[in-house]
């Protein structure tokens, strides 16, 4: 079976030789190509080549069209990213500096015509042509409830969300939701078959239960109204969201859940059951200092917690560049070994 068929089998509960295995090596592509992060992320060809090489080296299942999360802010006018050669790029200049900027924020009617989309499209075209028929091709789309963080910073977003004028907050969220919806459609049209819907503000550790109902859910409904749920993945950063999975499945129809590393996998699986896919995620920050033996033991624990009965995927967070190669190899060797079905 191809990796894409293995993923499909895991979602639908069909027999497969092993679990799907996702490993998110993004910034490592620059090192692989011998480029600075800034040069690497300047060209879609580089990102595609980096993804293909990392996947070929380690043999995991998926590739990413994601450059860095701040790329979405570029679609709304951000033009200053702080690159670092040992880690993830940051948004260095917020598009919204004060609340008056919200009125000036414009979402293009066609984001694929925006110059910032060009390199994303180039990357997607290459990945689709090379592995799109056989491998999961992932795209990353931030929910409207979280997108303002990239546009104004977490502090200012919390100020507006928790105590600012409701009409201004809703105006910003409408614009963000429009971008989210456009991105979901554009990525799918360009060949992405796994759409990671990133919604940390769709988790109760961020907003609590009350605000989840009154704020998170209504805006997620708007984001996803009319959107095909196939390939859609609920992801809250590294935050635990087991307590909202049932509602997200029931009301939003998202059946694939990419857990945080501290989540109780067995509990999540008991909620999701055979209706969808539970993605058990390793704490990849600990991979920095774990031994290969400790790494193997943790992979074994995760597989043991979720593997029985299928409908389970082994995955990572955004793997930091500090992780020794020996631990990446040990993690993946163990995932292929303990993730095998008899």
């Amino acid at each position: 079976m191809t990796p894409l068929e293995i993923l499909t089998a895991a979602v639908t509960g069909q027999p497969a030789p092993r679990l799907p295995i996702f490993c998110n090596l993004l910034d490592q592509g620059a090192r692989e190509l011998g480029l600075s992060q800034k040069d690497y992320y300047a060209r879609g060809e580089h990102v595609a080549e980096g993804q293909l090489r990392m996947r070929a080296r380690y043999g995991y299942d998926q590739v990413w069209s994601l450059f860095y999360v701040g790329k979405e802010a570029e679609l709304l006018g951000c033009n200053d990213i702080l690159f670092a050669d040992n880690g993830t790029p940051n948004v260095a200049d917020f598009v919204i500096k004060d609340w008056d900027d919200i009125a000036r924020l414009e979402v293009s009617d066609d984001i694929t015509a925006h110059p910032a989309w060009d390199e994303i499209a180039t990357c997607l075209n290459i990945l689709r042509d090379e592995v799109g028929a056989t491998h999961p091709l992932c795209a990353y789309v931030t929910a409207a409830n979280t997108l303002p963080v990239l546009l104004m910073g977490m502090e200012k977003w919390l100020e507006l969300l928790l105590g600012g004028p409701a009409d201004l907050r809703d105006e910003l969220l409408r614009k963000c939701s429009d971008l989210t919806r456009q991105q979901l459609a554009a990525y799918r049209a360009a060949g992405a078959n796994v759409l990671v819907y990133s919604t940390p503000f769709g988790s109760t550790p961020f907003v609590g239960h009350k605000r989840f109902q009154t704020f998170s859910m209504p805006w997620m409904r708007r984001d996803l109204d009319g959107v095909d749920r196939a390939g859609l993945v609920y992801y809250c950063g590294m935050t635990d969201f087991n307590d909202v999975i049932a509602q997200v499945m029931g009301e939003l129809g998202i059946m694939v859940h990419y857990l945080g590393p501290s989540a109780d996998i067995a509990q999540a699986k008991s909620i999701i059951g055979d209706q969808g896919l539970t993605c058990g995620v390793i704490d990849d920050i600990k991979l920095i200092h774990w031994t290969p033996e400790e790494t193997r033991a943790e992979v074994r624990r995760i597989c043991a917690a979720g593997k029985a009965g299928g409908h389970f995927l082994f995955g990572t967070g955004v793997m930091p560049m500090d992780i020794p190669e020996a631990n990446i190899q040990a993690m993946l060797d163990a995932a292929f070994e303990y993730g095998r079905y008899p």
Partner: protein
Amino acid sequence: MLDSIIKAYNEAVFETDKDAAFAVVNDALAQGVSAEDMVFKVVIPAVEVMMSRITQDPDANLAQHFMTAQIAAEVTEKMLPMFRSPPEIIGRAVIGTASGDLHSLGKRIVMGCLKSMMVDVIDLGVNVPAERFVDEAVRLDARVIAISAMMVHTATGEQGCRKVRQLLRERGLEDRIRLVVGGAPYRFDPELYKSVGADAWASDGISAGKVIVDLMKQVRPS
């Protein structure tokens, strides 16, 4: 009377309702409660209640952390000019985000708590070079350097906490200045703070206030 004020204030903070919290404060002042009692018997205990809730209440959340700190800082700032005599300051801390890191939320939550706890906290901003942390701590006679890092490479990088520790050692300042870190990478790996040379870490912005105050008590005044 104070009991009902404390209850109403805590409820407002828990609901992240700043307007309601200030309404409680203003009513209390109108009823004759002193500014000192508002800070020491209402605001600071409310921060401590939130510290406790964070570990015990499964629904404690980031929004509450943020608003607890904001409300505490703003109420304290409003009360201080009304004090009959200037309050005793526990000590001074400098705070900033690590070199290469632009995430300022954690720092802001910590600052809000520290202000309400009578700590003089100086904000060095974001993307702060290691040398500046040390230079400013010396210049301002701070007993604690607090470094926030939300990304792994800024938490573990050579230009962040590791460099600050190296500078403190080289300049013979380790007895005078304690080093504390916070941010997401430390939460995912609670042993990480040791490997970057910090004396302590805090799992969230609210708890950081207590950790920093405890560290201050360990340091001999210069």
